[in-house]
C-alpha cells in the first residue's frame, strides 16, 4: 500500500478548476516534491489530502484511509504544516507544542518526553519558554515542524516550508527534514517553489501546472528526460542575418530559443557545442559578449514541461493563499 494514493482528484471553485483530475502515488519513506508556480493548485491539493477541503470529484487515500469517508483516520496519521505560519505568537514554543499534543490526545508523560525530544531535534530547546513572537521566520518554521510531528505521524505534509526564509534557514529546514525522515521513518510530501531544493532533497518530483500533472519522476530522470544535457546562454554584440539558423545547426544542439541578441541553446554535449560556437562566431566576425554553460537544472525541466518560466509565473498577481488568510488590501 502506498502512503498516498490519488485518483482523478479534482477541485473546482465555481467554473475554475484548481486541481484537474490528478492521479499519482507517493511511496512509503520517500520525500515527494510538488513543484509548481503560484496558483498551480499545490495548496488546494494538500488541503484536500489533509481533509481541510472536500474534493469535487475523484478520490484519495492517505495511509490507507479515504480522505472523505475516513477523514479522522487520515487526520490521526498525518502531520501538517500549512503554508501560512500558524503558531500562536503569544504563547511560548513549548505551550504551542503542548496544545497540539493535547489536541491529539497524547497523555501527559509521553507528551512531555515527545516535546523535549522534538525541541531538541529542531534546535529550539534554549527557546522553549520564549513567546513565539520573538522568533525569526526560520525558528517559527522549525517550531511548526516540531508541532506537526508531535503525535509521531507516518506522513508529513508541508506546504512551502521554506518560502520567505533566508538561504541559511532554508538549508537548516531541509537538513532537519532529511534527518527527521531517516530517524522517524516518515513519508514526506512537500511543495516548493525552489527548484534547487526539490532537486537536492526530493526522491521524486511532480511538476504541477494549472492543476494538472505535467511530469513526475526523480529529479535525475526528469533532467535526463528533456532534450540537451547542457544549457548555453550566449549573447553577441550584433548578429548577422540567418545567425539563428547557424546556431541551430551547430553540433549537438537540441533546442534553441532566441531573444534579441541573447540565445539559449540546449545541447547534448556542452563542450563540443561551445567550441563549435566560438569558431562560428570568429569566422562570421561576430563578437561574443557573454557566454555561460550550465548543466540542466530542474528549472529547465520546468520550462520544458510547462512551456513557461517559473519566474514569469511567480510574478503573476499573488492569489489568495488561504480563504482564511487575512487579506491586506
Amino acid at each position: 500500500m502506498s502512503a498516498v494514493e490519488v485518483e482523478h482528484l479534482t477541485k473546482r471553485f465555481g467554473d475554475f478548476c484548481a486541481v484537474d483530475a490528478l492521479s499519482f502515488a507517493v511511496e512509503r519513506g520517500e520525500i515527494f516534491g510538488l513543484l509548481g508556480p503560484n496558483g498551480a493548485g499545490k495548496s488546494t491539493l494538500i488541503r484536500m489530502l489533509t481533509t481541510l477541503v472536500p474534493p469535487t470529484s475523484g478520490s484519495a487515500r492517505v495511509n490507507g484511509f479515504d480522505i472523505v469517508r475516513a477523514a479522522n483516520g487520515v487526520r490521526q496519521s498525518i502531520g501538517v504544516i500549512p503554508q501560512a505560519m500558524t503558531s500562536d505568537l503569544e504563547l511560548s514554543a513549548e505551550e504551542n507544542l503542548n496544545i497540539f499534543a493535547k489536541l491529539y490526545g497524547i497523555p501527559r508523560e509521553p507528551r512531555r518526553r515527545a516535546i523535549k525530544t522534538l525541541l531538541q531535534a529542531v534546535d529550539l530547546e534554549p527557546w522553549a519558554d520564549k513567546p513565539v513572537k520573538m522568533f525569526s521566520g526560520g525558528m517559527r518554521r522549525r517550531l511548526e515542524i516540531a508541532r506537526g510531528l508531535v503525535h509521531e505521524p507516518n506522513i508529513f505534509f508541508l506546504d512551502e516550508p521554506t518560502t520567505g526564509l533566508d538561504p541559511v534557514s532554508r538549508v537548516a529546514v531541509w537538513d532537519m527534514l532529511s534527518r527527521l525522515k531517516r530517524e522517524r521513518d516518515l513519508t514526506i510530501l512537500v511543495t516548493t517553489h525552489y527548484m534547487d531544493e526539490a532537486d537536492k532533497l526530493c526522491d521524486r518530483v511532480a511538476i504541477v501546472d494549472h492543476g494538472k500533472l505535467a511530469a513526475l519522476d526523480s529529479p535525475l530522470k526528469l533532467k535526463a528526460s528533456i532534450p540537451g544535457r547542457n544549457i548555453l546562454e550566449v549573447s553577441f554584440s550584433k548578429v548577422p542575418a540567418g545567425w539563428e539558423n547557424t546556431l541551430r545547426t551547430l553540433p549537438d544542439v537540441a533546442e534553441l530559443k532566441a531573444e534579441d541578441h541573447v540565445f539559449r541553446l540546449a545541447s547534448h554535449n556542452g563542450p563540443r557545442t561551445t567550441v563549435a560556437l566560438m569558431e562560428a562566431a570568429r569566422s562570421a566576425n561576430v563578437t561574443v559578449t557573454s557566454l555561460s554553460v550550465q548543466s540542466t537544472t530542474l528549472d529547465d525541466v520546468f520550462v520544458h514541461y510547462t512551456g513557461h518560466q517559473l519566474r514569469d509565473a511567480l510574478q503573476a498577481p499573488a492569489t489568495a493563499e488561504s480563504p482564511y488568510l487575512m487579506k491586506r488590501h
Partner: protein
Amino acid sequence: MHRIWAIIERDLRRFRRSPTLIVMSMLMPLVQLVVLGYAFGGKVKNLEIGIVDQDHGVPAIKLKEMFQAVAANARTFDTIAYHDQAVALHDLREGRINGVLTIPPHFSRKVLAGANPRVALVEDNTDQFSTSALGGALTELLATYNSPADPPRETAKVTLDMVEIYPYVPYIQYLLPGTITLAIFVSAMIGGGIIFIDDKARGLHEGYLVTPIRKFELILGFNLAGAIKAIIAGFVLVTVGSIIAGIPDPLNVLRLARMMVLVVVTALALISMMFLLMVRVSDPLVPRAIFGVLNTVLFFPSGAVYPTASFPPWMKAITVVDPFTYAVHGFKQLVLKNTGLMSISYDLAFLVGFTLLAMSAATLLFRRTL
C-alpha cells in the same frame, strides 16, 4: 502637495473599495439616531397597578372605575384587582407589578362623612421614569375625583400617600444592570467575534482542523473559552460595579451567588449568539463593522437605560427577542430589589432557551472544513 495628494488618494481609493466599511459607517449613526430617538423620552405606558379594595363601598367603586378609565384611554397603567393586600405586595416585590393601590376599610364612610380619607399607593421606585409617570397620572386622576362636576355631593377630599418600597435608587444604580450585561457582551464580542475571526484569518483554525478533533469538541471549546472570559468580565462588573454604584451591602454573598448564576447564563447566551453570527464569517472587518450597530440595537431597546414600557411597537418587538432584555431585567431584580432566583426564572429560562437555539443553529452551519 503631490505627496499629500498621494496619501489622500490612496485612502479614498481604499475606502471606495471596502463597501462594508462605507455602509457601516453610514448605517451606524442612522441606527443610533432611530434607536436612541425612540428609546428615550417616550411616554411610559402600560404599567401594572394592583388594586386592593378593602372597602367595597360606592365611592370606592367609583374610584376604581376612574382607574379603569385611565387604563382604557391614556393607558399609562393597567389595573389588576387583588383581594389580598399581602399577595399584591408580594407580587410588587417580585417585580410583577409596578404599584399597589389600597383603598382602606371605611373609605366610603369617611367620604360620605366629609372626612378626608387617604388612599395609599405602594410603588416600585426602582425605575424613576415609571415612578414619575405613575405619580403624575394618579395626581391628575385624584384631582378629577375630588372635583365632581355637578352637583357637588360631598366635600371630602381624598389624598394620596405614595410609599416607596425600596431605598432611593440613583440613576447610576439604575444603569448598573445594563452595564453588567454590556460588559459580558463586549467580552463576548471581542473574544467570540474579533479574536475568533482574527485567529481564523491567521490560519490558527486551519491548525486545529487538521487534527482529529471533532466538530462538537471544537464548537464547545470555542464557546466555553469565550464564555469563561465573559464570565470573568461579568464578575468584575458585578462586584466592582456594585461598589462604585453604591449598592447597599454590595458584597452580600448570597446576592453575589445569585448574580453569578445570571452572569453565567447571560455569558452563554451572548457568546452563542456571537458564534452564530460569526460561524460563516472569515473577513476580519466584519466583526469590527457590526460591533457598533449590534451594540446599539441590543443595548438600548433592552430597558437598560429607559423603561421598555415607553417604546413604540417596532422597538418592543426587538425588546422581546433581545437577550439583553432578560439579562437586564434579571440583574435589576437582583441588584435593585434583592429578590431571589424565583423572580427571574422566566429570564433564566429565556436565556437558556436562546443559548440552546443559537448553539443548535450554529452547529448546523459550522463547517469542519475551510
